[in-house]
C-alpha cells in the first residue's frame, strides 16, 4: 500500500491519540454502557489526560513521550483497560527506544505488548476483548515489517485498518472475557469498547479521530 499522508512521529501520534480519546469519550462511554459498566470512555480519557500532563511537564524525545504515556497508564489509570494499554505502550516505548522509529521496532513493540496483555489478562482472540483488535493490528505490522519499502506511517495505517476490521468482528461475537461476558447473548451485535480503543489508537497515527460512528460499521454494511 502506498502511503501518501505525512509521516507521523511518536510524540505527534500520542497527542493525536489523546485528542481522539477525548473527542470520542461520550461515544466510548455509550458503547461500554451497552455491554459493560459505562466507564471505558472516562477511564481512557482520564488516562490520556494524565499522560499529557506528564508529557507536558517533561517534554523530550519521541521515546520519552511514549514512556510518559506508558507510565501514566500503568501508574495512574485503573480499571481493566488502563494497565493493559500501559503494557502495550511500555513495550512500544522499549522497542522504539532500542530500535528507533522504524516499522520493525513498531512491529516488535506491538507484538510484545500483545503478548504481555494476553499473559496478564488471559484473553485469547475471539473472546471479544481488545485483543481482537490488537492481534490483527500486530499481525499487519509484522507483515509490513517484512517489506522494507513500508514507512511507519503506511504500516500504522494498515494496522489501523486491521484493527477496525477486528472491531467489526467483535460485534458478532459472544463475550467470554471482560464484563460483556456477564451479558450472555445480549452483548452480541455491539462491538467491544476496548477493541474500539485499540483501533482508535492506531488510527490516530494518521490523524485525529473526532467521531467513532463512521468507523463502527464494516464498509458496505
Amino acid at each position, binding site marked *: 500500500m502506498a502511503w501518501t499522508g505525512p509521516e507521523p512521529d511518536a510524540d505527534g501520534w500520542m497527542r493525536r491519540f489523546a485528542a481522539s480519546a477525548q473527542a470520542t469519550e*461520550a461515544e466510548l*462511554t*455509550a458503547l461500554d*454502557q451497552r*455491554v*459493560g*459498566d*459505562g*466507564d471505558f*470512555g*472516562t*477511564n481512557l480519557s*482520564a488516562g490520556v489526560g494524565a499522560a499529557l500532563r506528564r508529557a507536558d511537564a517533561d517534554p523530550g524525545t519521541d521515546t520519552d513521550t511514549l514512556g510518559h504515556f506508558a507510565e501514566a497508564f*500503568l*501508574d*495512574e*489509570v*485503573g*480499571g*481493566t*483497560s*488502563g*494497565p*493493559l494499554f500501559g503494557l502495550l505502550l511500555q513495550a512500544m516505548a522499549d522497542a522504539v527506544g532500542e530500535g528507533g522509529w522504524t516499522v520493525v521496532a513498531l512491529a516488535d513493540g506491538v507484538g510484545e505488548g500483545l503478548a504481555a496483555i494476553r499473559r*496478564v*489478562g*488471559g*484473553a485469547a482472540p475471539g*473472546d471479544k476483548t481488545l485483543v481482537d483488535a490488537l492481534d490483527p493490528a500486530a499481525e499487519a505490522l509484522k507483515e509490513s515489517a517484512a517489506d522494507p519499502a513500508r514507512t511507519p506511517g503506511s504500516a500504522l495505517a494498515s494496522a489501523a485498518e486491521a484493527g477496525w476490521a477486528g472491531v467489526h468482528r467483535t460485534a458478532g461475537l*459472544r463475550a*467470554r*472475557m*471482560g*464484563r460483556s*461476558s*456477564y*451479558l*450472555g447473548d*445480549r452483548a452480541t451485535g455491539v462491538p467491544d469498547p476496548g477493541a474500539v480503543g485499540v483501533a482508535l489508537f492506531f488510527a490516530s497515527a494518521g490523524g485525529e479521530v473526532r467521531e467513532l460512528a463512521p468507523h463502527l460499521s464494516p464498509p458496505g454494511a
Partner: protein
Amino acid sequence: MAPYFENNGDRLVPDALQGFARAHGDLLSLDPEHGFLLARDTSPARRVGLLSGGGAGHEPLHAGFVGPGMLDVAVPGRVFASPHNRQVYAASRAGARADGVLHLVKNYTGDRINFGIAAERLAHDGIACARVLIDDDLASDSEEIAAGRRGTGGTVLLEKVLGAAADEGLGLDALAALGGSLAARCRSLAVASAAHTAPTTGERAFELGDGELEYGVGIHGERAGRTVPRGELTPLIERMTGELLAALDPGAGSEAIVLVNGLGSVTPLELYGVYGEVARHLDAQGVRPARSLVGNYVTALDMRGFSVSLLLADEETLRRWDAPVRTAALRW
C-alpha cells in the same frame, strides 16, 4: 448537569473521601496522595494486614469496613473502575504487618490485574502478599464466562469473618486458605427493577419496562443475562433462595449467615420484607438463618435492586461473625 449531588470537575469520589475521613477521623485517616484509607487502631495481635479495594460506587464497601475487627486499609478506585496498581501498592505497604498483607479482591479482570501488578511490586520489596479471590455471584457461574463468577454482596461477609480471624493472629497462608474456603461456601444473587443513574449521562444505565426485572445483575450496573417478569415478592424470593441453596448444597441442619443487601434505592421496608421471605424459605428447607445483615452494604450507586447472599457457617465462622467490630458501617 451532573445527576448526582456533587461539584463539577470529577470531584464526586475525592470529595466523598475527604468528608468520610473527616466524619470517621477516630477510626481512620486518608492518604491524600494515593487516596487510600488506613485504620488507626486494628488489633496489635494481627500478624497480617487486611486490604480490600475496588471501584467506587459500592459504598459503604470498602471504606466503611475499615477499623478494629475488619479491614486495615481500603483502596477505592474511580466509580466502577479498579484502583490502579500504584495505589494498591502504596496502600499495601502502609497496611502490611509483620507477616505481610492479604488482598481481598473481588473477581473482576481489572482488579485482578491491578492488584496483581501491585503484588509483584510488593514481592520485589520483600513484602509477603497473598490474595483471596471473592467470587460469590451465582448469576455469572457459567462455563461460557471464562472470566469466572463476579465478586458481589458476599464480600462484606468475608471481610468480617476474615477480620476476626486476623485478630486471632492467624498467619498469611492460613488466612488466605480460610478466605478461599469461605468464598467457596458463599453465593449471592441480585435482581433489579431499575438501573442506576449513569454519572456520565444522567440517564438510567438501561431501561426496564413496568413490571420487568433484571434477574442476575452485578454491581456495576451492567444488564443481567435475562429479563423476567417481576411478580410478587414471595415467588421471587423462593426462586432466588432456591437457586442459592441448589448451588451451595448445604447438608441438613446447616446454618447460614444471611445478607439481604440493598443495591442503592430499595427501601428498608422492602429489604426487611425480603429477609422475612428468605428466612421462611430457609426454615422450610431445614437451613437455619443463624445470623443476618439487612441493609445497604455493597451497592451499585442508586440501582433499584437487592441481592441475597448466603454464607454457610460452622461454629467457628459464627464465633468470628460475632466478634466485635467497629467500623463506619458495621459495628457491634
